[in-house]
């Protein structure tokens, strides 16, 4: 089964992914707008991957966490990507927190040679 990818982001992100051939794009200006769009995307069965910019995801962290905890299937998968201002510097990503809780050591995903 082939499924679709959706993008939620600021104007430039949307333009970029539209150029690359993704039609399900939602340009959002505010956190409320993003929340509304995200909620409707959660209902859609044909969308399996939701790409969202980190800055917007950070504002909706609670909603995303709740959804991730509740969903029974693997999909839709939410992927966070940097926007045009570049990647956000965060102390710990949600994923790192999870890994740390699971195996008790901290692992830095991403750059090489920085793990502890």
């Amino acid at each position, binding site marked *: 089964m082939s499924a679709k990818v959706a993008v939620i982001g600021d104007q430039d992100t949307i333009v970029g992914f539209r150029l690359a051939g*993704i039609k399900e794009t939602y340009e959002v200006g505010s956190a409320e707008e993003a929340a509304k769009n995200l909620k409707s995307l959660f209902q859609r069965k044909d969308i399996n991957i939701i790409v969202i910019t980190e800055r917007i995801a950070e504002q909706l962290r609670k909603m995303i966490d709740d959804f991730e905890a509740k969903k029974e299937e693997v999909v839709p998968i939410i992927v966070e*990507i940097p926007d045009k201002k570049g990647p956000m510097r965060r102390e710990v990503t949600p994923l790192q927190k999870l890994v740390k*809780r699971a195996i008790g050591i901290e692992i830095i*995903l991403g750059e090489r040679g920085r793990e502890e």
Partner: protein
Amino acid sequence: MAELIEGVNPTRMELLKLKERVKLARKGHKLLKEKRDALVMELFDVIEEARGIRGNVERLLREAFEHLIIAESVMGVLTTQEAAMSVEESVGVDFANKNIMGVLVPLIEAQREKKTVIERGYELRETSAKLDEATDKFEDSIEPILKLAEIETSVKLLAEEIEKTKRRVNALEYIVIPRLENTTKYIEMRLDEMERENFFRLKRIKSILAAREVTEAPA
């Protein structure tokens, strides 16, 4: 800490049953521990794979945005948006599952026809070559983004499974097994005690009977 199981009768039957349960619990504990260790190994493998993918996505997107911003400044934001609107939908994903120690992790495959510049659908006469480059970069970044989705989901699922397994291992190790062992011990001691009581009772009766015989014999 390790208490007894409530309401067990100190009988031999009960003791045999408990011994079976201890054996089973130990076996389960061993298996779960092995599962946990194997999962941790798998997690490390996936993390090893993930290393660099996020960095790669970040780098690709940075380049893509640079090109896009230049394209916007050359052609104007409106023309760029217009061009973006006229691109046909061409990205889909295929899902498959991979089984890692009973954890189903997704395998995501991007379905994407590689299009030439002409096939993209926007008007070439009105757009700058910078737009083509930006589009190239964004197209290139889609696959790594999907890969990122796959890997991060795998890490998440594995980590959750490890946590669950860890909790079970600990529950068996620190609660279930000690409790079963304590109860077996209690029953064993109780049975021994009953045996001693019985032994003493027999001795006592024997001596009473012997005494009675002595007093009754002369008569």
